[in-house]
């Protein structure tokens, strides 16, 4: 049952997070001569340090494989 099974709750939540991150548009980075050379996004490093974020990335990679398999691209 859904309420007593943490795995399905976890999976659904990860799925939702994955969809949310995929829909966020990426910021355009200015690359001019006068652009700041400092680290552009400090959040990028902290995100990678989060195991849940890395798990989401692995999930998305396998999901891409699944979609390729479904579409017959593989």
């Amino acid at each position: 049952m859904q309420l007593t099974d943490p795995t399905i709750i976890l999976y659904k939540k990860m799925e939702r997070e994955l969809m949310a991150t995929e829909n966020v548009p990426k910021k355009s980075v200015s690359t001019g001569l006068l652009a700041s050379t400092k680290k552009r996004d400090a959040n990028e490093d902290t995100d990678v340090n989060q195991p849940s974020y890395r798990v989401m990335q692995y999930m998305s990679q396998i999901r891409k494989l699944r979609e390729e398999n479904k579409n017959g691209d593989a």
Partner: protein
Amino acid sequence: MVMRKDQPTFDAPVPGQSLTAPLGGRPWQSPPQYATVEEALDYYLPRLANDEVIAQLMDTLEMGVPVTVIANTMQLASVMEGKHTVDVGMLVVPVLIEMILYLAEQNNVEYVMGDDKPQKVRKTLVDKAVLKLEDLKEKGSDEKLESLEAVDEVKEEQKVVGLMGRR
């Protein structure tokens, strides 16, 4: 003929029995073999690529065992063997589920995710209560939203009536 009723089981552990083993005597009480998610995945994924394991997995899926149950059982067994901790196991579960789904689709095996409503409802009070709660959630979500919006509107309408407020 004597009717057979459900007999109580007496082989369950006595409360506190888990504390009778010496500390560190159980695999899960010692430091885990794989401490990070990556190490744990390095342990699982090659196993899931094994042909024998895949065949057994597909048989299990064809029997109607939900994918989430299989993934949870896999990680729980590894926790009990002391391979990784419970938290690493929980983090690994979504990747395992995704991998099992990939294998099932590749082998054209139909699977059950495990989030469907049970067709056969047990008569226990807990199950009845959980089903009732789920029904209420489904029915009440729209009504709740409407009532919350109404409360927000009322709050906006309320004017400042303090001593220093304008009259």
